[in-house]
């Protein structure tokens, strides 16, 4: 069961090959056996999962099952879940039990899914390796010496290891696509505003976006149809109808115009990754697509702009964690200022403090125009680059990451770590959707192909990814980890 996709599991449940309870028990047992080594979960909610599975089986028996009824998944620990700890990977929220569900959690519950628990993540979604969690680093099931990527590394590792068939992640600068690439799974960052951020702990509000992580584009389509849609409680949520993404997966790629941004194939790209990506593009040509080079001239300014905008927003969003209302509070504070300063000093980890300091500095008097305003102007130029490119081509393709997964502990310099997201960050600044699909393997570590489209082109991206997965088998490859424990 653990090797099946969501779509295959749905068919098996429908056919009565097993029940949701049997499936849930099987995966919970697998998590129990394997996750001690992987560390992909922060909380496993076995009791609630079994209750949800029983409810799903009962609904099916009454003839009330929908496409997701009884299907197991996991949630990044950034999504608030009623009566379950929502830590966001931080000591600050280690004792926080959310009193409500995030919008996407409400939707998944209503669809009859079974959450097995909350997955590990970089603290407050800040990181590109999943080494910044208060709960310790997650390991990559393809190679336990490697990182799974961040910040949705727990979700990616859990799916890759067959602990769950799918999970939700969030993507502020690549945090769905980069770990999906490192772990050999499929991950979609939807258009900004497509999925409500209500109940998703905020890192950088103008960049954050939740999305699905699964084995196939078809599974991502199934999940996106369930979680997308307008939510009045999130003022940035877009009022726009939600297609049945899975039903739109059949279109031919004949005549598809693919753009290869020349800036995505320059210095810093591992030649083996480039070879894998160019081989993947050839597959598309064999399916009838045409390929041309395009330019995104402001690409190399994306990381500097991001590291002004994201920390600035983070410094504001994280100001709510002050030791007063919920979360970590220091012992015996002498006065209110001492309460704030010590609670925050004790509750936040190094990378979070670093970004709060950068954000506060760049927003402070005398620096605002030079940093924040400038970065937002550059952001418009970056967005315009994409708009211009999509006048010429239907989709853009390139590597998701410059290298395969790197070793745990190998990248200690923050600036070097930030450069890992060089191909993913600009997409968040522009708000466009992007998907990473498995497209190769270098010395046992997966490679991701990134496909980008204009705003709200999720149907097209999912179909383009799906067609690739109809004629290749990269998405079907599984790590050796856990095979003996099938």
């Amino acid at each position, binding site marked *: 069961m653990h090797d099946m996709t969501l779509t295959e599991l749905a068919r098996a449940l429908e056919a009565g090959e097993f029940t949701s309870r049997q499936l849930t028990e099987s995966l919970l047992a697998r998590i129990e056996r394997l996750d001690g080594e992987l560390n992909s979960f922060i909380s496993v909610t076995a009791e609630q999962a079994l209750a949800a599975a029983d409810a799903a089986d009962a609904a099916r028996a009454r003839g009330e099952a929908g496409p997701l009824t009884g299907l197991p998944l996991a949630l990044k620990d950034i999504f608030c879940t009623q009566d379950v700890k929502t830590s966001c990977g931080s000591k600050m929220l280690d004792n926080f039990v959310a009193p409500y569900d995030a919008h996407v959690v409400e939707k998944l519950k209503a669809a009859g899914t079974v959450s097995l628990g909350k997955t590990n993540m970089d603290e407050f979604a800040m990181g590109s390796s999943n080494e910044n969690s208060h709960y310790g680093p997650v390991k990559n099931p393809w190679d336990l010496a490697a990182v799974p990527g961040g910040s949705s590394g727990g979700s990616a590792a859990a799916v890759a290891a067959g602990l769950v068939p799918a999970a939700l992640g969030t993507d502020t600068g690549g945090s769905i696509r980069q770990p999906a690439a490192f772990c050999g799974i499929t991950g979609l960052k939807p258009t*900004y505003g497509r999925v409500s951020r209500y109940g998703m702990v905020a890192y950088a509000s*103008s960049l954050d976006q939740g999305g699905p992580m699964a084995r196939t584009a078809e599974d991502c389509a199934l999940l996106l149809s369930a979680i997308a849609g307008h939510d009045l409680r999130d003022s940035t949520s877009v009022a726009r109808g939600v297609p049945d993404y899975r039903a739109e997966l059949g279109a031919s790629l004949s005549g598809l115009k693919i753009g290869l941004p020349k800036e995505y194939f320059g210095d810093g790209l591992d030649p083996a990754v480039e070879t894998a990506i160019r081989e993947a593009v050839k597959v598309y040509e064999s399916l009838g697509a045409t390929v041309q080079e395009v330019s995104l001239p*402001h690409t*190399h300014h994306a990381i500097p702009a991001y590291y002004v905008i994201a920390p600035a927003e983070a410094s504001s969003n994280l100001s709510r964690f002050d030791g007063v209302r919920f979360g970590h509070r220091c012992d015996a*504070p002498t006065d209110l200022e001492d309460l704030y300063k010590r609670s925050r000093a004790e509750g936040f980890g190094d990378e979070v403090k670093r970004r709060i300091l950068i954000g506060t500095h760049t927003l402070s008097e005398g620096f605002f125009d030079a940093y924040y305003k400038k970065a937002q*102007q550059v952001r418009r130029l970056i967005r315009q680059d994409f708009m211009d490119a999509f006048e010429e081509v239907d989709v853009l393709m390139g590597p998701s990451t410059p290298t395969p997964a790197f070793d745990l502990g190998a990248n200690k310099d*923050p*600036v070097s770590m930030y450069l890992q997201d060089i191909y993913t960050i600009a997409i968040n*600044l522009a708000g466009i959707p992007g998907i990473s699909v498995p497209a190769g393997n270098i010395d046992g570590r997966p490679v991701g192909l990134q496909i980008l489209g204009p*705003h709200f082109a999720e149907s097209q991206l999912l179909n383009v990814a799906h067609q690739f997965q109809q004629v290749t088998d990269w998405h079907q490859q599984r790590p050796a980890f856990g095979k003996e424990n099938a």
Partner: protein
Amino acid sequence: MALEPQDVQRAAHLARLGLDETEANRYVDDLTRILKMVDQLQAVDTDGVAPLAHPLDATQRLRADEVTETDQRERFQQNAPAVESGLYLVPRVVE
């Protein structure tokens, strides 16, 4: 631009983030290198370019000025470290 320890302490104070001298010194080098990377932006010609705060270039919409949330204070305060009579308890500031 190069930062000094007092710049880091200033930002830490503004952010109400307690840092001792050793920690502040530890962040100086990291933050200086990050700001050096960020300084590349100064080379970009942005004359006449309007800042983009919302990636869809959308204007923040307003909702009707109506109560939409029910009072759940008691439930929410179950998460608080200390409360009394519906108020959050914090250390005394004025003796």
